[in-house]
């Protein structure tokens, strides 16, 4: 009835991410696909182009620092608690990695254009700035054919493959999200040409996801691989599961800051860990279970209205006579 797509992190990345791919890098300030980031580094993928709206906690900075990325199309890249993406700064200066800057909504519009299967979208921002001047790859002027006015257009971004982290997925690849459908994942992931690799906090049976399809951000047909990865967004937050690990972000940031120190972080926390479970084990070993416990959310914000998707069976119409009245008869 459907293909089971549940597999290990290692298998998912090795099978579905190739050198030279354009990758949609999921999440925003939270829900950053860190388990996937580490695995891409472990497998030494090279010459990736990333596309994303904005991304925090330095996941992308690690990916660049580890030498995986040659081009970045983005609006904002940060590890907020150290105030800059240092590895990216160095990679830009050394010309190892090219940056293509646009505004957040130009980036999102680029992902929407890719999602929509059209080559560009008009946007209101970016005009009058250096982004428009210095990034003609992604931004140009277009004439509105109706009014004749000139405005900014952003080129469609379509990934070969998308990497995202989610709260819940089933083994077939129906991916549930709540508390926003995904900020931009609903477009970035769906626009991917080959499909989506998703790590999820929980894996459930398809009858669970399908009982509430409104919460599906990526449906089965678009998913390549489903990986069970609790804490898969750490140190970023996962809605309903854990908060942002600020101390770890700062700790990691101190390594990002220094090009000579960064390899030591990668050796210990990425290459030195067989998989994401090993990374979490190392965390507990080094900073204690209390470090993770501190991230537990305040729960109790549950839906109060019980919806029912119920349908109507047209079988009821069998034998029911036509409605009529005096005028129709006349």
């Amino acid at each position, binding site marked *: 009835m459907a293909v089971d797509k549940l597999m290990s992190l290692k298998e998912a990345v090795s099978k579905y991410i190739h050198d030279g791919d354009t990758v949609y890098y999921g999440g925003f300030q939270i829900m950053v696909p860190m388990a996937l980031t580490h695995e891409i580094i472990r497998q030494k993928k090279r010459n990736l182009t990333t596309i994303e709206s904005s991304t925090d906690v330095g996941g992308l900075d690690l990916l660049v620092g580890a030498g995986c990325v040659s081009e970045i199309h983005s609006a904002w890249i940060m590890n907020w608690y150290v105030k800059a993406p240092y590895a990216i700064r160095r990679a830009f200066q050394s010309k190892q990695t090219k940056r293509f800057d646009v505004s957040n909504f130009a980036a999102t519009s680029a992902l929407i254009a890719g999602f*929509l*299967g059209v080559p560009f979208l008009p946007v209101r921002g970016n005009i009058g700035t250096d982004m428009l001047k210095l990034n003609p790859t992604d931004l140009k002027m277009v004439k509105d054919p109706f009014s004749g006015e000139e405005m900014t257009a952003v080129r469609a971004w379509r990934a070969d493959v998308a990497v995202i982290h989610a709260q819940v997925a089933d083994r077939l690849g*129906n991916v549930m999200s709540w508390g926003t459908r995904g900020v931009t994942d609903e477009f970035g992931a769906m626009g991917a040409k080959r499909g989506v690799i998703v790590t999820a906090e929980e894996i459930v049976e398809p009858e669970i996801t*399908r009982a509430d399809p409104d919460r*599906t951000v990526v449906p089965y*047909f678009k998913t390549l691989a489903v990986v069970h990865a609790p804490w898969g967004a750490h140190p970023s937050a996962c809605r309903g599961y854990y908060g942002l690990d600020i101390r770890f972000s700062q700790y990691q940031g101190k390594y990002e800051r220094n090009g000579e120190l960064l390899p030591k972080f990668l050796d210990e926390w990425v290459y030195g860990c067989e998989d994401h479970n090993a990374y979490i084990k190392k965390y507990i070993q080094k900073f204690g279970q209390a470090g993770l416990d501190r991230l537990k959310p305040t729960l109790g914000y549950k839906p109060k209205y019980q919806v029912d998707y119920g*349908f109507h069976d047209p079988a009821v119409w069998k034998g029911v006579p036509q409605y009529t009245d005096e005028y129709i008869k006349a």
Partner: protein
Amino acid sequence: MHATNYKLTELMVVRCAKEIKDSEVVFAGVGLPLVVVGFAMVTHAPNMILFTEGGSIRATAPPGLAITVDDPALFCNGDASFGMLSTMAALQRGEVDVAFIGGAQIDKFGNINSTGVGDWSKPESFTYFAGSGGANDMATSGKRVLAIMPQDPKKFVEKVDYLTTPGFLDGPGAREKLGMIGGGPSVVVSTMGVYKFDEKTCEMYLAEYYPGQSVEKLKANCSFDLKISPNVKETEPPTEEEISVLRSIDPTGFYLG
């Protein structure tokens, strides 16, 4: 074993369903196509993915008979329900294998009219139908188009009064020139037979006639000079099992009569 007692609608549904291969993404319009895909999903195409304009995306047959493209039955236990945005976007991305549509008029290049008949420039002469709906989008960008049409000389015409939905337009190369990503018409299933399209000329030809019909009868119900396949044959009737499964989908004959 072939069924001996079946309705024309049942034959059409079963014949249409055979055009759907397993694991394909099928975008189905309102009406009979919704029954066809339901039938395909519970028979030979268990891995088919169903899309509708209402935004249903599902990998399993719906729990009930849908009568609209946004019918709640299409969303009960569906895979996703993002609205028209999601299914039409996938269509524009080139991810739809089969665009399954209907129409009011069709010409020899498979161009379809669902807007109206008469002369648009003289409104008083123009008889409006419903308009394009999603058929235009589906036929522009679906990898191939499957159409279902009533057979009638007023409906199989040399040139449609209003070109709502592109077939091969005026012939070979026309779609490509305009940058259409879909491959165009593949099969037309009418109330009397089945048509395909010549790869070189892009013209429609008769491939099958239904039991009880003949090439002559079909020619008489077509206004253009109908080409006939050298291999034209009688359509295989449905099997008893097919009819039985089909009737279990629509037990009261809402669609099937």
